[in-house]
């Protein structure tokens, strides 16, 4: 309770001479104000009524009720705070209390959002439809009704609701709705995507500086993913193909194919997944590597902050001549933290540690280092970002007790521009540099790419 409220609720000093008639008028004015929901003016009037006539018991009780109510935290504000902190279950209880006091559209909206966050879609829908009846909350309700439709696999209803909310005068709501509209067009039980990203590298072979060879390449990728149980939940499978054809250094033509299946658990503010995948790569027209991977990850998102961790086990089988000894197991662990700003921008920091247990012990190594990613949403259709990282690598000591150490520096900037709801124009430029104790092991590369990507959801 603030000192102002303490003063306003302190004992009333009676007037030297009572004035019952004026006291009655003040009491009626207080009741008028109370029915209008204005506690401050009601309290002012009731205090004056009591000052002029201390015997007015109903006025004293009304004043006490006001002071008690104001001393208690506002359940609506408490609910907003809890929801923002990623606790929709606790927020739901506070909003239900707020609804008992004042059953307005704003409270219905917040209750609907809590039910949505809790995955209680059937209970969320009538609350959001109620909020939709009030022009002040209609467009916010449309966004969440669209999310419900998206989760139920009804993409056309979702798109219609997001399009409606996109006309909001509130720029933040409008931007979120526009982004969701694009997502609804690119989402579905089956999503197909393709990209063409011509690329230029100053050192395509990652050779030492003296032997660096610049070359361009045509790069194409196709991916198909499916969520048979609906958007954002349960089983998912995906497959992808990548092909890079060098303009002149054809021995570095690269092809990759992979597939994965996983299961995602999602709870309010918490998500976890377990995924199995397999990959195959060819270099210069010959099979180079076969790998499998098992990945477990979890993320906790209490509001704007997101914290996560992951572990991946990757058995690798190098098939290229001369590379067989690198085969083995790769264990990768990661920790990340990200902060999401209004408007869709974000800042993420992560750390990665990796152990490569090659079948040939002399080729085993450790890698570790931090990474930063800044993503800036410059408008409804434009995104840009920079990312940079440092990795330190050290080999296991060989029979002479020598352990070589390398350091990798990587920096990259990129931008994307949405061409409608399904096409994205994108460009990137970056560089990396290694410093190695190994003879001739240091190299650098600068690369740039410009391309378009397309994605569409089905069903």
């Amino acid at each position: 309770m603030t000192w102002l409220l303490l003063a306003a609720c302190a004992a009333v000093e009676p007037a030297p001479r009572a004035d019952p008639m004026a006291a009655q008028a003040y009491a009626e004015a207080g009741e008028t104000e109370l029915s209008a929901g204005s506690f401050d003016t009601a309290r002012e009037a009731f205090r004056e009524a009591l000052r002029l006539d201390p015997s007015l018991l109903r006025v004293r009780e009304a004043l006490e009720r006001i002071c008690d109510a104001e001393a208690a935290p506002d359940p609506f504000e408490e609910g907003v705070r809890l929801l923002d902190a990623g606790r929709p279950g606790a927020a739901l209880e506070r909003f239900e209390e707020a609804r008992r006091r004042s059953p307005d559209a704003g409270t219905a909206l917040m209750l609907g959002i809590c039910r949505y966050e809790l995955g209680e879609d059937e209970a969320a829908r009538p609350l959001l439809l109620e909020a939709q009846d009030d022009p002040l909350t209609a467009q916010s309700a449309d966004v969440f009704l669209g999310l419900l439709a998206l989760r139920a696999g009804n993409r056309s209803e979702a798109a219609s609701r997001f399009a409606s909310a996109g006309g909001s005068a509130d720029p933040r709501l409008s931007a979120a709705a526009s982004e969701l509209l694009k997502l609804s067009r690119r989402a579905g039980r089956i999503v197909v995507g393709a990209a063409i990203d011509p690329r230029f590298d100053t050192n395509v072979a990652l050779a030492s500086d003296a032997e660096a060879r610049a070359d361009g390449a045509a790069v194409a990728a196709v991916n198909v993913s499916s969520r048979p149980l609906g958007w954002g939940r349960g089983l998912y499978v995906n497959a992808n193909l990548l092909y890079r054809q060098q303009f002149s250094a054809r021995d570095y033509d690269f092809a990759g194919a992979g597939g994965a299946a996983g299961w995602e658990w999602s709870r309010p503010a918490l998500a976890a997944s377990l995924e199995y995948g397999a990959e195959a790569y060819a270099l210069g027209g010959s099979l180079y590597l076969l790998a499998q991977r098992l990945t477990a990850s979890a993320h906790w998102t209490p509001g704007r902050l997101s914290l996560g961790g992951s572990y991946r086990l990757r058995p690798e089988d190098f098939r290229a001549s001369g590379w067989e000894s690198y085969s083995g197991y790769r264990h990768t662990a990661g920790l990340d933290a990200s902060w999401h700003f209004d408007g869709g921008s974000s800042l993420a920091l992560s750390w990665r540690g990796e152990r490569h247990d090659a079948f040939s012990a002399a080729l085993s190594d450790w890698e570790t280092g931090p990474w930063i990613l800044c993503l800036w949403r410059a408008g409804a259709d434009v995104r840009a970002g920079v990312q940079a990282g440092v990795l330190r690598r050290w080999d296991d000591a060989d029979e002479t007790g020598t352990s070589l150490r390398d350091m990798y520096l990587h920096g990259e900037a990129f931008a994307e521009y949405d061409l409608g709801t399904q096409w994205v124009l994108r460009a990137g430029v970056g560089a990396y540099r290694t410093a190695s104790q190994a003879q001739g092991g240091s190299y650098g590369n600068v690369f740039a790419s410009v391309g378009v990507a397309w994605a569409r959801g089905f069903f």
Partner: protein
Amino acid sequence: MRLRAFAAMLAVLLSGIARGDDGGTHLRAGASAFRDGRYDRALVEFRVAGRLGAGGEATWYVAAALLKLGRVDEAIEAFDAAEREAPQGRDVVLDFYRASACYEAKLYLTADRLLAQVGEKAGPRIGQEAARLRERIAALFTQPPAEAVVDWYLAQADLELRAGRRALARALYAEAAALSGRRPTPYRADAAAAGIQAAAGSAP
């Protein structure tokens, strides 16, 4: 500045109220609180004045205090009640306050009509303020209103009518009708007219 002009106006009005009249005492107390920026207290005193015999004139000042407290919807209801109860209490300064309430409630055309009547009659400072508001309103109407705008006013009016704020509902229907009339082809003018009748018919 508006505050000073309002206080001066109150002083003139209150000079006619007989000393010893309880309503008058509370009107003066309300005016004093209003002048000091204690609008909570002013509102209470004006309400008490109304109950103790100052009659409908106090309602004009209740409306002004509600506006100052940011309770725009209630202010519009109170201005409407004041006009019915004590039309003789109306003057250009109160019209300016009423126009300000309408502007805050997005009743732009109603506000503009009231501001046009205010002009310089309420003194140069209020006149300048009125002219500035009219410029802002004019800037909103460089293009004919879209259908969605008329829809919004009608939907808002329906809600206010259901909530029992009939004067505000009537004003919103009237605004919708006026907006419809500014379009190349009228849009939902019948609904606006029917709304005005419904809100007026159920008015006390």
